[in-house]
């Protein structure tokens, strides 16, 4: 009889393997911390107030640029507009992305725009309760500074204002700004052009109550967030390196389980499926975004991550189940449907939510599910259901871990009374389970700790003369860690060729048919009865 590689490996070899993996782990952290810039960059844009003197509305709109050779006629503030009798419907807010002397790049991967209004408090022009602002926005692009602008999106959107005035509402405090929440504005899934232009109007229609009761707007500010090109390059390089690494270990693992004379057990299949999902998330499909304008790459990345997490969570459940060491035979996926359903359902809810948000943004980049009441309720419902599923899963997992440890302590007291073969078998089971439990807890703890650090810190540390990008280190380090986790899992839990427990006692086997059933369902049975074994048995009888 034989077990997994991890049981038969010597302590020396196991330590050497651990050190090698630790070195790779440290290297993946350092790649993010020292080589890559921070993952994202934020650029603040203050919209220029352009005056549209055209009275007619035609199909081909005129584009208003805030600066450059053909810039629009501007006003500095709305007192100036008041003097010139310019109406609200003739104001166009113009934003050019990126700032002067720079250009956007396909390496930026996405462009997220956040909207913030500067609204001044006026006693006679206050923000009504539940006020909603209507935004008529057009997005255009061009690829050199002398081309015409080409429209790529146009939409009329509504956003709910959520503003708070902290000072007393008195005449003395007129002119102070409300404290308004940030509003989601736009998300582009690819940055395929060099220059973008936004023209935003806030049309007023008194009869329909459009943009009435939104206070006195002083300014419109946008913040543009994109992925840094340097971080993208480091990330792509990492993925390109990791894909063949995990692929090779997958092929090796497949050969190991196909070399056996028995079909693979459920645990072996699940480990292989985990490798497939890791490879799926590793494959650097993003390289195409540098050459093609594929706006669905963000959504595709989300789906791949969802598949991997669902597979990982399922693996943990099945690994616990297969190591319960009670007398129940498992080795069938149907045994675990109660625990797997929360995973599938929670993942499905998040998938629907992602499709409702990012999927719709493929057509209309200005769409936000949070902008309407129905959308907000739906989004909250999906997120709450996913949260409940996560809690249920966690409870199931904790209960199964508790069961395994309870059975371990039960088996441990019986170990001295067992035969050598059965004792080695159970010791192998216990060691396999404890080792994976320890490694998994370490990886999960590392992920949580780095997540908290990246939330709290400014994003970079000054370490001696070097700047350490904590957020980038978090991304590359954790990503590398889970790859190493799957790699080590497939290597250490592959079937072993070594055998132990040469003694065979037919009397014991005949007398413990129940535990024999347990033995046959685990991955310890590698070779099974071979011809040599049968011939040896026959010779002994003769």
């Amino acid at each position, binding site marked *: 009889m034989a077990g997994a590689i991890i049981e038969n490996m010597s302590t020396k070899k196991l330590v050497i393997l651990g050190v090698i993996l630790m070195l790779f782990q440290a290297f993946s952290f350092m790649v993010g911390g020292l080589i890559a810039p921070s993952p994202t960059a934020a650029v603040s844009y203050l919209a220029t107030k352009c005056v549209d003197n055209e009275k007619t509305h035609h199909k081909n709109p005129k584009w208003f640029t805030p600066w450059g050779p053909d810039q629009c006629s501007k006003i500095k503030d709305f007192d100036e507009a008041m003097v010139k009798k310019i109406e*609200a419907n003739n104001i166009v807010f113009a934003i050019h992305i990126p700032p002067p002397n720079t250009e956007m790049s396909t390496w930026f991967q996405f462009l997220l725009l956040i909207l913030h209004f500067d609204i001044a408090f006026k006693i006679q022009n206050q923000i009504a309760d539940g006020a909603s602002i209507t935004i008529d926005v057009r997005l255009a692009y061009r690829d050199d500074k002398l081309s015409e602008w080409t429209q790529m999106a146009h939409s009329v959107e509504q956003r709910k204002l959520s503003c708070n005035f902290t000072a007393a509402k008195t005449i003395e405090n007129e002119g102070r700004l409300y404290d308004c929440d940030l509003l989601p504005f736009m998300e582009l899934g690819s940055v395929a052009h060099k220059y973008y232009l936004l023209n935003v109007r806030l049309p007023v229609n008194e009869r329909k109550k459009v943009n009435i009761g939104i206070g006195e707007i002083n300014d419109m500010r946008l913040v543009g967030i994109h992925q840094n090109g340097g971080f993208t390059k480091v990330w792509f390089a990492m993925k390109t390196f990791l894909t063949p690494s995990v692929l090779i270990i997958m092929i090796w693992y497949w050969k190991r389980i196909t070399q056996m004379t028995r079909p693979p057990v459920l645990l072996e299949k699940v480990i292989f499926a985990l490798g497939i999902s890791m490879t799926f998330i590793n494959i650097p499909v993003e390289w195409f975004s540098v050459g093609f304008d594929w706006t669905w790459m963000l959504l595709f990345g*989300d789906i791949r991550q969802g598949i991997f997490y669902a597979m990982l969570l399922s693996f943990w459940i099945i690994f616990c189940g297969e190591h319960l060491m009670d007398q129940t035979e498992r080795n069938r996926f149907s045994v675990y449907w109660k625990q797997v359903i929360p995973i599938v359902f929670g993942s499905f809810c998040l998938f629907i939510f992602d499709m409702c948000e990012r999927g719709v943004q493929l057509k209309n980049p200005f769409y936000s599910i949070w902008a309407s009441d129905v959308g907000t309720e739906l989004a909250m419902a999906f997120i709450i259901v996913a949260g409940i599923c996560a809690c249920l899963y966690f409870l199931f997992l904790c209960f199964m871990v508790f069961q395994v440890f309870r059975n371990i302590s039960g088996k441990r007291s019986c170990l001295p009374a067992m035969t050598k073969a059965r004792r080695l078998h159970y010791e192998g089971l216990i060691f396999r389970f404890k080792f994976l439990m320890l490694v998994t807890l370490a990886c999960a703890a590392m992920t949580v700790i780095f997540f908290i650090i990246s939330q709290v810190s400014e994003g970079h540390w000054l370490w001696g003369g070097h700047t350490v990008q904590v957020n980038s280190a978090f991304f590359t380090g954790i990503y590398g860690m889970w790859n190493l986790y799957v790699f080590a899992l497939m290597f250490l839990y592959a079937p072993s060729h070594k055998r132990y427990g040469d003694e065979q006692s037919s009397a014991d086997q005949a007398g413990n048919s129940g535990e024999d059933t347990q033995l046959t369902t685990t991955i310890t049975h590698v070779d099974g009865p071979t011809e040599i074994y049968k011939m040896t048995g026959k010779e002994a009888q003769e």
Partner: protein
Amino acid sequence: MRSISSCGALLSVYYPQIFLILTSGSYLALSSVVALGANIICNKIPGLAPRQRAICQSRPDAIIIIGEGAQLGINECQYQFRYGRWNCSALGERTVFGQELRVGSKEAAFTYAITAAGVAHAVTAACSQGNLSHCGCDREKQGYHDQEEGWKWGGCSADVKYGVEFSRRFVDAREIKKNARRLMNLHNNEAGRKVLEERMKLECKCHGVSGSCTTKTCWTTLPKFREIGYVLKERYTTALEVEAVRATRFRQPSFLRLKQSRGYIKPTDTDLVFLERSPNYCEEDTVTGSAGTRGRLCNHTSPLTDGCNLMCCGRGHNTHQYTRVWQCNCKFQWCCFVKCNTCSEKTEVFTCK
């Protein structure tokens, strides 16, 4: 009022000329027009120190922003002191930063701080709007010498640091004399800029997979300049009297010390400091630069500083009757021209004798 209108007239005389020269001409000829116009403009602006004139000639696009920033400071100063005897007016030499106050008083401290903060604020806002180029992205970033490559590798958002640095280089350049007043002015300039930096708001946005917080991106937001005015007004009320200390008997003053303290306690970075007590600002006085309160509007029922008793320093007030016309029953929109009716009533206005 006369000095305020003349100050506004002075600024308006130069601004149309500046705008006219800078915005005329075709795009390709813009550089030569700017180069030619810059010398004319920079030489005509009154009161520029030599180093300021050099900066003006090398960055003609920024001089408009600097003028707007100085005006922003002056306007905010006049707003914050609109009810006081001193309403941010002064006699004296006229410069792009308004009249210079001769007395090293609390009012001078406030004026210098608000002007330096105004220039920094205007430069930062102009960078956000795209009206200024090369906003801090011209530094080496991550070892890249090319600005474009640095932007694509790690980004470089123009934040308040560039505006503060620009204000420091330009506004501090007017301090030529080596005396105690120079130390006071430099300190108050820096205090104004520090207040602006402190009031920058850090805002963060979570984004990533399904809107979870896998990625959090933060940026700083420029506050409205009125908030800076309120903060500096509070610093003005708690301004500290200082005196200059010489390292040796014959050297120039080297640092400022609190006057009421026994040891050598220095003011903090954000304190406003003054060297001399303020005049009462009641009478026009060319020596102190006081414009006086003669002709100022006052409120004859108010017990505060805008009341006629305090504002007119006991000289009494005149009463004028006139018909006030104002807009009423307005239908408000979020900006610009609004539709109103016109109402009128007879009312009285009071001015100091």
